[in-house]
Each structure stands twice: as structure tokens, then as C-alpha cells.
């Protein structure tokens, strides 16, 4: 059985700024990282591999440099990595993205039965949490979102039991395979790649599939196939704060000033 993990390369958001003029992200010089939730997805897939001996494939849709993200997954131990990259995939919204990812999973399934697909709960740049469910819908898989624990994966009985982390409560649910999970950070602690695996992954093959491979209708993917448009992105303005006193050398004085200020602004009651 094959487990497929979807990983996305995202800009390191602590370092992202928004261009106030064009209202777009300034991507220049910003380092890319693996979407943090997706590292937990990879880890869970690898745990299935460790326990049941299933194979793991990681797929990512993105520009050619997203290969680094897949190489990291290879260093952690996935067996196969596929980069979905084509100019016609560019500018996709969540609908178009999930179409491409679903098509890739279907293609993988032709070689080996896909039992589980694992996605992150959401990305830290797009933040929509729609791609996972989008894929499940297109593939007609059961979907279990916000998984924080896998209680049982029963390969012969073809079912899975998980815990879902909801606001203020947990839900224990069971679903038949094939299934798509979206996972939260509490699920596991991602493994740190050993040096041997890093070195091996450096020369490992990352397959690149373009639309010649997937053969999707270009009007249904990428910018053309995206019904959603971004009208404006902006960071909420935050008024610059003011420095009060000298906390390092006169902490009491500074604390007094702070209290006075808060009283004055009616933020503290005596």
C-alpha cells in the first residue's frame, strides 16, 4: 500500500513583508521552508512505514525550487518524491491546486494502491485549509480533518480510527480506507534526519511531472482554472509604541511609569 503526503513549500512567514504599494508579498530574498504542518504529515506517514512497511510518496505542486522541500522529505525517509511543476499550474487557487494534486495521486494509484493521503491542516501562507478536503472530494476518499492522534490503522479490515482536535473537545472517529487525513501539530514530533539520510537524499531522484504527464485541461487548472481572485492583501496597521523609562537601569521607575500610563488610559483599575 502507498501512503501519499502532500507537502508545500512556503515562505518563512516571520520574514515576509507585504509591499504596501502593490499589496503583494515581497518574496524576494525570503527563505522558503516546508509548511510546518506538513512536516507532521510526513512524520505520520513514516510511522506507518515503520509499523506496516508501506511505501511513502511525497508530492508537491510548486515552482522548480520547491524541490528542496521534497528533498527534505527524502532525508526524513520517504521512498519517492514527485514535484508537480508546470507553467500552466501557476497562479492556482485552492480548487485548481487540489485538482492537480488529486490527478497526481490518481496517477500514483495506477502503480500502487493508495490507502492513505496525508495533508497538513493548513498552510502558513495561504491559510485556507481547503486543499486537503478538495483532494478528498475529487478522489472520493473519506476525509478526516484536524487529526491529532491515529488510534488504529487496520490494513486488512481497511479502516482507520483517529482522534480529531476540535475547539474544546476531541472527536473519535472511524472511517473506511482509502482516506485523506489533515493533521495538526500535536499529532507527533517530526524526526530529525540522520546525516546518512541527508547525504543519501542529496543525490536521490526527485521526479518532475508537468502537464504533459498529467494531461489536465489547461482551462481547469492554474490561473485560468481559479475562480478565486485576491483583491487586496494588507497588514493591519499597528501604531508604533512608545518607550517608557529605562527598564534596564531603573526597573522600579519604569514599572511606575507603566502603571501610571495604564491607569491614565483606564486599562487598570485601582
Amino acid at each position, binding site marked *: 500500500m502507498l501512503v501519499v503526503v502532500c507537502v508545500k513549500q512556503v515562505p518563512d512567514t516571520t520574514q515576509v513583508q507585504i509591499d504596501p504599494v502593490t499589496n503583494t508579498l515581497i518574496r524576494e530574498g525570503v527563505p522558503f521552508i516546508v509548511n510546518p504542518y506538513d512536516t507532521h504529515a510526513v512524520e505520520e506517514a513514516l510511522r506507518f512505514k515503520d509499523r506496516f512497511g508501506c511505501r511513502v510518496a511525497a508530492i508537491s505542486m510548486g515552482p522548480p525550487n520547491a524541490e528542496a522541500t521534497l528533498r527534505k522529505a527524502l532525508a526524513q525517509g520517504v521512498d519517492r518524491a514527485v514535484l508537480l511543476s508546470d507553467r500552466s499550474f501557476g497562479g492556482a487557487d485552492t480548487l485548481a491546486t487540489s485538482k492537480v494534486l488529486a490527478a497526481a495521486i490518481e496517477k500514483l494509484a495506477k502503480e500502487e494502491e493508495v490507502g492513505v493521503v496525508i495533508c497538513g491542516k493548513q498552510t502558513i501562507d495561504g491559510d485556507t485549509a481547503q486543499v486537503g478536503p478538495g483532494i478528498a472530494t475529487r478522489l472520493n476518499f473519506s476525509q478526516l480533518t484536524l487529526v491529532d492522534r491515529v488510534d488504529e490503522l487496520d490494513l486488512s479490515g481497511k479502516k482507520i480510527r483517529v482522534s480529531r482536535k476540535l475547539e474544546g473537545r476531541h472527536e473519535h472517529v472511524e472511517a473506511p480506507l482509502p482516506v485523506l487525513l489533515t493533521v495538526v501539530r500535536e499529532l507527533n514530533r517530526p524526526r*530529525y534526519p540522520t546525516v546518512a539520510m541527508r*547525504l543519501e537524499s542529496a543525490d536521490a531522484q526527485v521526479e518532475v511531472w508537468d502537464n504533459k504527464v498529467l494531461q489536465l485541461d489547461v482551462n481547469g487548472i492554474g490561473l485560468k482554472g481559479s475562480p478565486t481572485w485576491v483583491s487586496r492583501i494588507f497588514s493591519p496597521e499597528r501604531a508604533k509604541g512608545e518607550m517608557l523609562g529605562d527598564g534596564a537601569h531603573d526597573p522600579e521607575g519604569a514599572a511606575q511609569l507603566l502603571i501610571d500610563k495604564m491607569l491614565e488610559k483606564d486599562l487598570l483599575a485601582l
Partner: protein
Amino acid sequence: MMPQTAIFTTLLVASLLFFCWSVYRRFSLLCYGQPEERLDQPARRLAEMFLYAFAQLRVLRKPFGLNHFVIFWSFMILALANGEFLVNGVFPSVSLALLPEGVHRALLLAFDAVSLLTLFAIAFSFIRRLVVKPPHLDSLYVKGRSPEAFLILSFIALLMLAYFGLHGSLIALGMEDPSAMPVSSLVGSWLSSHPDLIPALRNVSWWLHAFVLFAFICFLPHSKHMHILTAIPNCYFGALAWPATQPREKFEKGAVYGVGTVERFTWKDLFDSFTCTECGRCQAACPATITGKALNPRQIVHAIKTNLLENGDALREGRSGTLPLIGAEGEGTNTEDAIWSCTTCGACMEACPVLIEQMPKIVKMRRHLVETESRFPEELLNLFENMEQRSNPWGIAPGERAKWVSTLPVKPFVAGETEYLLYVGCAGSFDSRAKQVTVALATVLNAAGISWGILGKDEKCCGDSLRRLGNEYLFEKMALENVELFRQRGVTKVITLCPHCLTTLKNDYRQYGLELEVVHQSELIADLIRSGRIKLDKKDDSLGKIAYHDPCYLGRHNDIFEAPRTLVQAATGVAPVETERHGRNSFCCGAGGGRMWMEEFTGERVNHARVDELLAQKPDTICVACPYCMTMMEDGLKDKGAGQVRVRDVVEVLAEGLLRKNA
């Protein structure tokens, strides 16, 4: 051949054969260790061997070391007497009496006096072990009051007593000249009044002397007294580069990283373990041991020896041993907890009388855990990721590196235009308290008219914590990036704020072919004070009584003890007060070796122990010269409810003095 000679010869040959076999069994195991170059610079090595093995400089650092010094030199001198005894036992016609009369008499006098001295020294050793009982003589598996320790002491005492018995009898029989042997002649004159005892005592003493020597020869290679054979060569093979920084690793497919099984250590690491005298000095100095952690540097060395002996047969058969080096319980193995408790402070290495290198062995085992097993305390995952992704331990956006500059005019470093690169380091760039130190340093440098600049956003972490934590792969990546950056920018002279940056740039990057002139801020400023470029006429006493804490990586690791004290003296007119453990013997703050980024679950906190010691001096201010020490001292003072005591970096003290002068 006389029957006595025949029996003696047989026993001697048997003992020597057993000795050779035992020595061969043990020392042939060294061949399973990895290669390491320890034969270079023979002249320097001979000098080290003379200083530490023969002059026993380290041994003599502790008062009781004098006792060992006496025993050691007596042993050396008596080796001649015992040699003669053995040869004479086999060839009764050969003896030192064949030497010229004057030489022979001088030797006899020496043997006599030295034997008496040894008896006293052995008596002191008994008293020490039985009455004084210093706690560091005991470790988990080796006790100060073990049968082995007393057996060896008794052997030596018996040997001396037998010597006096034998020579006293010979004197009483008129066969030896009493005038050359004052102590033996006392025995002789007592025997003259008991003539019937003489033949029996002569015989008994002779055989006792013989049997003790044979027993000693047989027992030696199997006991901790093996150090008699290994200590001298171990001092010869000692590390010439101090501090002993970690060696590079070769990253290539199929290679093995770090030390996970005993034969992965180098032959010298294994030889170290055969050399340990179980003196316990390292354990008495180790901040981890003292505060109740699982780590005891002496036990690390002992575990290596035990593991090697235990797995020796397997190694000979080309297998790996069954006793794990890491992770099991009991003797001959190291717990992971112990391995992670080390602050790499170097106190153990500083204390060891026979130049054993405990700390690098711990880091080698960390390398195995991180690089091969990917097993380390949870907190470190974040650290490793932050370092890899954002080149700083906190994971703050690299773009914020130069934010401290906002209040000051600071130039970027440009080769040819600025003389020094100020390598601010991660703490100095991101930690809010350390940033104040950076500003103070910048003020002082400007006041002294130094030409300096920074790399700003382009500066990267030096990787110190990664290397000490055993993540050599990532360290190497960062080191190579930095070396490339420094070369590109034409950096040759560097000022660092932090002793960890100092040691990494100065001592570790050398392994990558980068030779920089790196100074710690305190060294540079102390020079400026000495040369009169910084003058402070008005002394400032507003900080009250100042106690100085030596950072391990500034002091012990880089020999900078005076400079930071000079800064305090210049600004306040008074030298800082010293704690009991200071200078070379200073006690770690608890943050080195990557411990800064780890939780401390067991025992007392290291920084609490250190703060207590500093508070005993009743200071108003504690001075440090390292941002990690700063954090540890401030936290420790808060925890101890001593928040009224301030913590200052030495450069802040000086900067405040300068401000006052200009005011």
C-alpha cells in the same frame, strides 16, 4: 643452582610471563581504536611529559599531591633497588656492590631514606582513606576504600618493611656497612640484641620482598595501578592544542559519525581510559556531578575502560561487543542523560593530573546520538531547526540582526576602510539584555577611536552550540558559510562580544583553513587602557562591591583571565573580589555545551550553585564577560531572591565610567 635461586627464578619467570600476557591482552585492544595523530612535535611532547609526568605539576596542584609526588619519586628510585633484587635473586653474584664504592654507598643511603619516606607517605594514604575520607575518592563503581586500594598500599608498605628487615639482618650479620644505611642500621642494632631472630628475619624478609614483588607484577596490569605503566606515555601523547576542540568529521556516504561503540573511539581515547588513576579530581570539579546530574567525567572514562575489556573478546573475533556503550544500565555503559548533562566547561580536563581528555569523548558520543541515531532531548529539535533555517538559536528573523544599531551610528564592515569586524553574535544581536552590552561595547570602541564595522543582516551564527551538542553536520555547513563570507569580505581582524564566538572563530574555524586575528572585547579594551587610549580619571564606585565570574570559554578555554579584571579595575579603581573557585578553577554558569537551550531536570541548577558561591562574597554587582553567563546569573539571582544584586558585563562597567567622565 641453589634451591632458593631455582624457586625464585621459576616464580619470577612465571610472574613476568603473566605480566606480559596481561599487558598484551589489554594493550592489544588499543589496535581496535581509530587512528589519531599523537606523534607530532616530539620536543614539545617530551617537555609536557617531563612537566606533568615527572615533575607532576598537576598532581602538586592539590596539597595531598605532595604525598603522591613522594611515592612516585620513591618508586622511581627504588626501581633500581628492586631491579637489583630481582637480578640478584637469579644471579646471586650480581649486585650493586659491583659499582664503585662511593656510588654504591650513595645509592644505599638513598634507598634507605626513600623507603622510610615512602612508609610515611603510605601511612598518610591510609589515614586519608580511612579517616579523612574525601568524598571524591568514591564514584558509583569505584570506591576509595576498596580492597584493591588497600591491597596496593599494603603491598608497598610490606615491600618497605621487608627491605628494612632484610638489610637490618644483613647489617646485624656484618654483611653490610651500617654507616650508609641509617634506618636499616637501627633495625640492625635492635637485632644484635636478639641474635636468634636474625636468620629467620633475613629469610622471611627476603621471601616477603620477593613475593610482594611477584604479586605486584602480576596484579599491576589488572588494577587501576596500571596507570604506573600508562601515565608517563599518556602525558607524552596528550593534546597539544588547548582547548581541545572537537575534530572535524568527514561527511561521505557510508561513513559512520560519532562514537556509538567503544571501538569508534580513537586509540588515544582508549589509552586514556587505561590511564585513569581514579583520583576523582575531575568529578570534584565537574559542575554536573556537583549539582547531582547523572554525569561524572570519571565514570565516563571508567565506562570506556570497562566496556572495552568486556567487549574485548568480541572485538578480537571481529564482532561488535554485546555491552552497549550508550544507553544501558550499570557498569561499562553511559546513560544518555549523562552524555547530555555536560556543559563542556573543561573543568575535568583542567583537573586531571594525567592529562585525560574527558569532555571531547562526551561530545563524540553526542555526535553519535544526533547524527546517527537522531536521538536527543526534545528541546533541541527547535534549536537545530532554528539554526538551520534562521541561523540563530531563537529562530528570530535574520533581518532583525542589526536592530540594536537603531540608537547608534554604526558603519558596515568594508575591508580596507574599517580595521576590525565587530562580530556581534546571536545573543548580542537578538537577546534584549545582551543588546545593551553590544551598545556599551560600541560606545567604548567609538570613544577609543577604533575603526570597526559590522556585517549587519549578513552576519550568521558561528555554530558554537551545534558543535558542542554534537550536530557536527550542521556546524560544518554553517562554518563553511561563515568562512566563505569572511574571505569574501576580506575580514582579517575580529572583535567578539561573546567568548563562544571567540573560541569558535579563533580555534574551530582554523580547522577550515581560516586564520583570523580574533580578540575578545575585554582583551582589546584592556590593551586600550594599558596604552592610554582609554583614560578614566574619575573612578566610579556606584556599582559597590563587584565580584567577577570567569566564563569558562573566556578563561579556562582561552586563557583570558586578566583582561576583564583590568576593565573593572580601570573603571572603579578597585579589583573585583574573587570567589573561592575562580580563574582556571572557575565554576561554570551552566549554559555551555548547548545546555543554554536545554531544560535542567535533575539536581540543583548549576546557575544556582554558582550564584550561591558568588553571593557568599556579599557583592553589590556580579560582573561577567559572556552573554550566556549574563542570562544564567540574572536568572539565578532572581530565583534566589537576590534581585538587588546587579549583573553587568565588564564592558558595561567601563562604558558607564566613560559616560560619567564625559558628563
